[in-house]
């Protein structure tokens, strides 16, 4: 089916892509630790895209064939039991992480990591892959599912991330989308997407809490809804606490029992992968049942294990309490008492665990909402947001920074430049100074987190501002500016104010990919990389040319009387030529015709400015005049 679409697109004589922004829908993707979901929304009616068996969930599991091709989803999950060395799951936990981070994630992890600097690499089927590449394979599969069902090429998406994802993990997610050939319209925080899905915008006013226990991350967010505006009040979480930890806890319990029978055993990464599947089965079983029996088999030895729900709850209690503690902190941050919360939305498959529901209910003093499938609710919200961004919407989402951002100062102390829970987009500047006479350079170390000391926070980036002229200590004024965009991504600039020496860096996380690595991967992953790039540039040229044309048309409509007939028809000729260029495929032709139009309308622009100024000085209301001319 996809082939058909591609063939049509490349039919000779036709433009290779439909004109940008015409009717292509953007998709919403929940890129989850355990499962991913893709959805699309038309006319504010969201729909989860399902397979032929009606399943919306795509397991976030990837298997690699000997030729390097990726198999994603249920099939890969099945291969996990047969060929575990070629299969990877829960890779989201590693997004934007370095080797030391991975080693500090507690419990037995089913990853075989490669020693080295920078972003962590996994050994799979004899290859070394980064989490970004593996995530890109999952995204590609979701994109294909969408294209299969929607019957057109999908190029844009809203992708959700845990609210608590730091800058490195967000950047990694965006990189993965790029590799998969998707333009990210917006990264949206999962809890916010869940709230959107509940349509809390329409009827509900007041403060709502979203308790999101995903496979690998936990978030609690407080949102205020008012007249179609979703305002995130406060958010908090733990990027290393999730439903997977329940599976681990059960597995550790089983392994302890085995040790009593067989003594110490050496387990391979592959054994752990298989055993974790059993741990997950046990967790799911105990949601419905009071007790279950399970079997583990390694090294040719079989052991039987019985676990009751009471035992499971005993194992899960420390984990659930960690989440409850975070809830309390977020409530405090949001200046809200539990009884002021009007509703609690549950997100993530692990919120089906009865103990979780019970404790959340107790904290907020009410039954949590779970009308929408907690596994699909985030993707549904992402699809709604994708439609809002492309088609338009009455609703607006105002989000905040999940973590404070700062820079290192003397003595390894962090000076916060942007506090957590600040509305985004935001830009803030702070001045620092030199501490040595004649100091000509200054190292800027960017950090994210709430703690006082540098080594307790997450290091995002380091760069050096050079070329500071020699001055006495304390005389230089180094202004450091932090900008966070609507995706929550950070750019840092540094400037010596007295001389204007400046430097700006898009923060490339310490555990991110370098531009060269990214370029290599793009080359490897896309056979048609060059073509795709050409198409993108062409689309951009058309969008810009249309904007220029529309601006000139508006000006002609209002101020056309400032031109005589000859001048006007001359401009019309140029406009027509530009229109023809836009219909063609040559972006250079489009761009140069835009320049011609700009040149040919300069006199017109000057007359319009003169007229505006005259009117302003003589006190004529410009608007009235416009209306008079327009009528």
């Amino acid at each position, binding site marked *: 089916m996809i082939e058909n679409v591609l063939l049509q697109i490349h039919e000779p004589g036709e433009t290779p892509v439909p004109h*940008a*922004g015409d009717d292509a829908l953007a998709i919403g993707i929940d890129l989850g630790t355990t499962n991913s979901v893709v959805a699309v929304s038309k006319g504010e009616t969201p729909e989860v895209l399902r397979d032929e068996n009606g399943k919306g969930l795509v397991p976030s599991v990837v298997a690699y064939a000997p030729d390097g091709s990726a198999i994603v989803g249920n099939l890969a999950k099945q291969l996990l039991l047969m060929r575990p060395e070629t299969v990877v799951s829960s890779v989201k936990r590693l997004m934007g992480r370095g080797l030391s981070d991975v080693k500090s994630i507690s419990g037995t992890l089913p990853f075989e990591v490669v020693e080295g600097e920078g972003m962590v690499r996994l050994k799979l089927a004899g290859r070394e892959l980064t989490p970004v590449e593996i995530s890109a394979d999952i995204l590609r599969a979701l994109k294909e599912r969408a294209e299969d069902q929607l019957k057109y090429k999908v190029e844009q998406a809203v992708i959700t991330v845990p609210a608590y994802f730091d800058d490195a993990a967000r950047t990694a997610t965006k990189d993965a989308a790029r590799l998969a050939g998707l333009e990210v*319209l*917006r990264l949206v925080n999962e809890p916010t997407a869940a709230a959107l899905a509940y349509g809390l915008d329409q009827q509900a006013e007041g403060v709502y809490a979203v308790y999101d226990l995903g496979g690998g991350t936990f978030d609690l967010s407080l949102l205020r809804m*008012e*007249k179609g*505006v979703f305002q995130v009040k406060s958010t908090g979480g733990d990027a290393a606490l999730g439903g997977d930890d329940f599976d681990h806890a059960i597995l550790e319990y089983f392994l302890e029992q085995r040790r009593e029978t067989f003594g110490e055993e050496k387990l391979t990464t592959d054994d752990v992968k298989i055993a974790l599947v059993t741990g997950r089965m046990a967790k799911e079983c105990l949601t419905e049942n009071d007790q279950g029996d399970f079997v583990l088999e390694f090294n040719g030895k079989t052991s039987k294990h019985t676990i009751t729900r009471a035992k499971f709850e005993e194992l899960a209690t420390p984990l659930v309490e960690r989440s409850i503690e975070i809830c*309390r902190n977020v*409530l*405090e941050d949001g*200046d809200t*008492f539990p009884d002021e919360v009007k509703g609690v939305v549950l997100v993530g498959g692990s919120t089906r665990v009865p103990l979780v529901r019970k404790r959340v209910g107790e904290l907020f003093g009410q039954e949590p909402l779970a009308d929408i499938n907690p596994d699909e609710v985030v993707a549904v919200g992402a699809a709604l947001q994708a439609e*809002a*961004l*492309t088609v*338009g919407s009455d609703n*607006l*989402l*105002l989000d905040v920074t999940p973590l404070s951002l700062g820079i290192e100062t003397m003595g390894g102390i962090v000076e916060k430049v942007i506090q957590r829970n*600040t*509305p*985004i*987009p*935001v*830009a803030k500047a702070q001045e620092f100074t030199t501490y040595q006479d004649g100091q000509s350079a200054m190292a800027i170390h960017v950090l994210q987190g709430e703690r006082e000391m540098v080594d307790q926070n997450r290091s995002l980036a380091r760069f050096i501002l050079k070329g500071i002229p020699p001055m006495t200590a304390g005389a230089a004024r180094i202004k450091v500016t932090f*900008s966070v*965009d*609507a995706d929550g991504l950070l750019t840092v600039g540094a400037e010596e104010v007295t001389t204007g020496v400046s430097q700006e860096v898009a923060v490339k996380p310490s555990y991110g990919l370098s531009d060269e690595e990214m370029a290599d991967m793009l080359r490897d992953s896309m056979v048609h990389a060059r073509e795709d790039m050409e198409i993108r540039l062409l689309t*951009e040229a058309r*969008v*810009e040319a249309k*904007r*220029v044309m*529309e*601006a*000139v048309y*508006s*000006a002609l409509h*209002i*101020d056309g009387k400032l031109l005589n007939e000859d001048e006007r028809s001359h401009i019309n000729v140029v406009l027509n030529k530009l229109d023809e260029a836009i219909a063609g495929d040559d972006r250079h032709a489009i761009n140069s015709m835009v320049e011609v139009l700009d040149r040919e*309308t*300069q006199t*017109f*622009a*000057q007359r*319009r*400015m*003169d*007229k*505006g*100024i005259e009117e*302003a*000085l003589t006190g004529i209301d*410009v*608007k009235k005049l*416009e209306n008079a001319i327009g009528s």
Partner: protein
Amino acid sequence: MDALSSNMTLRNDQSGLHPCWSCKGPVAEADLFCETCHAVQPPGHIDHFARFGLHNSYDVDVDGLERKYFELQRHLHPDRFAKKTPKEKSLSQQQAVTLNEAFEALKDPLLRADYLLKVLGADGISHDHTVNDPALLMEAMETREALMEAESVEVVNDLTMKARRDVRDCVKQIAKAFADQNLEAARKLALRLKYLTKLLEETRQHKARLVMK
């Protein structure tokens, strides 16, 4: 050409108009969008009050301010520009950033006092860490002590209520001081508000500790 452009600059300054970056037509400093081609404009060099169409006054109806903030964000937020050109996206981000900054500065009574002092040419209070007012120091010490000793939610609630009343009164007094153009008094009261705000925060934390025990 040179004569013309210098002439234009001079006249621009008087009229407050400059050319729209997109259609080159005249736009005013405070315009968010060009009236002719509707392109979003860079944020104008105007103060936070003007951005919300307000006069430089301490008396701000915070609910009204918020409604206006939401309304402006509805038009200016980057989410409204996802399909536009990179230039328009970037301008929308600048506008939204400026708007967030202005809203943050005006909605909070303490930050608003600080900002208005600066707008009116006086020293703000943000970098003032020392308090020289003996009466205020004494009051602060006594209230803190009472809070530390509070073992029940009721006692903390009483302290919170009192602090809230004090904040409300202090805000009224600040408004009056600004209305009387007595900046020295306004500044002194703003420092008191700073302490009261901090106290309120502490009572909340103390209550949270008691409730959640």
